[in-house]
């Protein structure tokens, strides 16, 4: 019997392997999925890849209690060995292998084309991939990326009290467009669900206040999902200097202290969210793409973002969402409270229904 969104799922899965990763006959496609994610997404991608005569392996495995290197000790050894050997890898894990040691090995090999769809279940896959008009969205993402790349100074405010500024320093700005067949703007084959633009500002120049009022996800016990109360971070020279807010802020503060890793206080990257299908649902990979939000990553920073060629090491990685962001690039407004206002972008956004 057909299940919920069965046909739409098949279409989205076909897009992933055929158009996005461009899986070729005889290539090894690896799909990883933990027990917290809907297996149907993995099965659909596997079927689509089999139809292309790829050699497909779906790894369904024990869920680790966290993200990144915090997962290393909990991963079955054969998972670690398998990952760097794929030609293409789709990650559906809810507790991401992203930033883990086998992930680093895979990306550094420059052989594995990686696509992170962590926690993306059938409905989200259909909403955020299958039903998105990528031909319309990608020129929009590309234009925002170009503008951002040229900027020297960026300021982001939100109605919730976010007010943070930083310098760009010419570091690469990466548009996630679902074209996973070629390396990203940093030269890495690390790709993420489309509808996001990501970069690492010059860390020491980041100053002000970040207010997460959408969602906060640090993996395991720090995977809060959507927030009841905003979490406020005082930022000084790229590091968290203070945390305030409600119950979630307190748990987050204690959890950070427990991790006992000073690097978990370092800001790693910032993003725009521009996926027309994304809703705030408590799944970070979707939340950070909610139209008009900005997102900050804290802790582990990939070596390819920072221009130094070495990762800013940390045991894990936390992401938080600032909804309805106003972004100013060198005094030119791109978005105001989540609405696209830049004259060059407004029409493109309108065509996307935004």
């Amino acid at each position, binding site marked *: 019997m057909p299940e919920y969104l069965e046909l739409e799922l098949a279409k989205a899965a076909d897009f992933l392997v055929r158009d996005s990763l461009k899986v070729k006959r005889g290539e090894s496609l690896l799909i990883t999925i933990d027990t917290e994610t809907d297996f149907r997404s993995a099965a659909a991608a596997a079927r689509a890849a089999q139809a292309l005569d790829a050699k497909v392996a779906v790894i369904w*495995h*024990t869920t680790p209690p966290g993200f990144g290197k915090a997962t290393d000790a909990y991963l079955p050894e*054969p998972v670690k060995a*398998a990952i760097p050997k794929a030609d293409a890898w789709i990650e559906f894990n809810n507790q991401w292998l992203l930033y883990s040691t086998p992930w680093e090995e895979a990306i550094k090999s420059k052989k594995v084309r990686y696509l992170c769809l962590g926690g993306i279940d059938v409905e989200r896959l259909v909403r955020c991939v299958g039903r998105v008009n990528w031909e319309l969205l990608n020129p929009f993402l590309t234009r925002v990326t170009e503008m951002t790349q040229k900027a020297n100074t960026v300021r982001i405010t939100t109605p919730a009290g976010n007010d943070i500024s930083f310098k760009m320093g010419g570091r690469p700005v990466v548009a996630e467009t679902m074209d996973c067949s070629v390396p990203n703007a940093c030269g890495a084959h690390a790709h993420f669900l489309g509808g996001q633009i990501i970069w690492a500002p010059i860390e020491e120049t980041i100053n002000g206040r970040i207010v997460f009022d959408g969602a906060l996800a640090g993996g395991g016990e720090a995977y809060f999902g959507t927030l009841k109360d905003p979490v406020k971070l005082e930022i000084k020279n790229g590091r968290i200097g203070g945390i305030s807010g409600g119950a979630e802020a307190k748990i987050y503060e204690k959890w950070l202290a427990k991790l006992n890793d000073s690097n978990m206080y370092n800001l790693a990257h910032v993003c725009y969210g521009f996926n027309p299908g994304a809703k705030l649902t408590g799944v970070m990979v979707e939340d950070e793409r909610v139209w008009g939000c900005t997102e900050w990553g804290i802790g582990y920073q990939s070596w390819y973002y920072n221009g130094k060629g070495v990762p800013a090491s940390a045991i894990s990685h936390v992401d938080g969402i600032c909804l309805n962001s106003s972004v100013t690039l060198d005094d030119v407004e791109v978005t105001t409270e989540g609405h696209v206002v830049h004259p060059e972008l407004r029409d493109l956004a309108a065509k996307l229904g935004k």
Partner: protein
Amino acid sequence: MELGKTAHVVVNKLCKVKPRESVLITIDGAEEFRVAEEIAKAAEAADAKVMVAWHSTPRGYGKVGDPYLPEPLWAAIPNTDVWIELNNQWLLYSTPWDNAMKPAVEGKGKVRYLFLGGLNVDQIVRCVGRVDIDTQAEFQEMLVDITSKGRKMRITTPAGTDIYFENDAKRPVRNELFADVPGPHFLLGQIAWAPIEESINGTIVYDGSYSGGGEADLGVLRTPIKVTVKDGKAIEFLGGSEAEFVKKWLVKLNDPNMYFAAHVCYGFNPGARLSGLCTEDERVWGCTEWGFGQQGPAFKAKGINAISHADGICLNSSVWIDGQQIMDKGKLTHPQLAKLAKKLGKE
């Protein structure tokens, strides 16, 4: 519920999985996923780190499947503590299997491999979950002991098998039940060994089923295949269309080592029925089975290296060890073995 209990037996009783061990379960697209899922659940309950690899079905057994296997699977297999294979098209005797098993047999590797290839829910419940493991262990240990002490053997069947061979006292008689030490282990109810290859002479008549993987997975045979064996090598295949097919298939494989007898087995799984699945068929109570081609390292024999491996079943076997008959047309005649067989619901 029966499947849940069966999975518990596989993980805890047969593989003796310990907390924090890595358990790899491989299953191809041709196999019933529920079996993998239940075993994974039981392993998770045992505090193991569990990985199920569900992958493209290779087009044959052993090294024939190598080109069809995803690269990540090659890397995963030798890097686990426990590997439970459920594949319909077996990875057994493939190159990644070699990479995992050769070090394990030599005492340098850690992988405990349990072959349950192709068993669906019904079959695994019958052949594992409903078996009295303690009595089965007693029965198998006694039969292994008797066989290990024997030298000259003869097997006949009502269908015309009449084959003689000698055992090498230095080679192990493998008792397939538990998978609690590194190396290859197979579905319970099989006792397998490699006779001295050149001593095997006579006629083998496959009247149960025949399985060579891919197109040569013939299942239950319509017409018996009569194989004449001289000094361990198959020199003639007679019978109907299936015998003709096997002859042509072997020619196509173009590997002279596919003609050499690799091992012989007794089948004694109280739940096994002739179903067309070799894993089950070769354990039908009272059958014997001959494998040709690739010879696994665990037999500590000549180590025949062949591109694939084919197994055939001889039903209702009569077996003599050094002139003493232990079974007659599939029924145990040895008094102590017969008593244990009765406890297992068999003759």
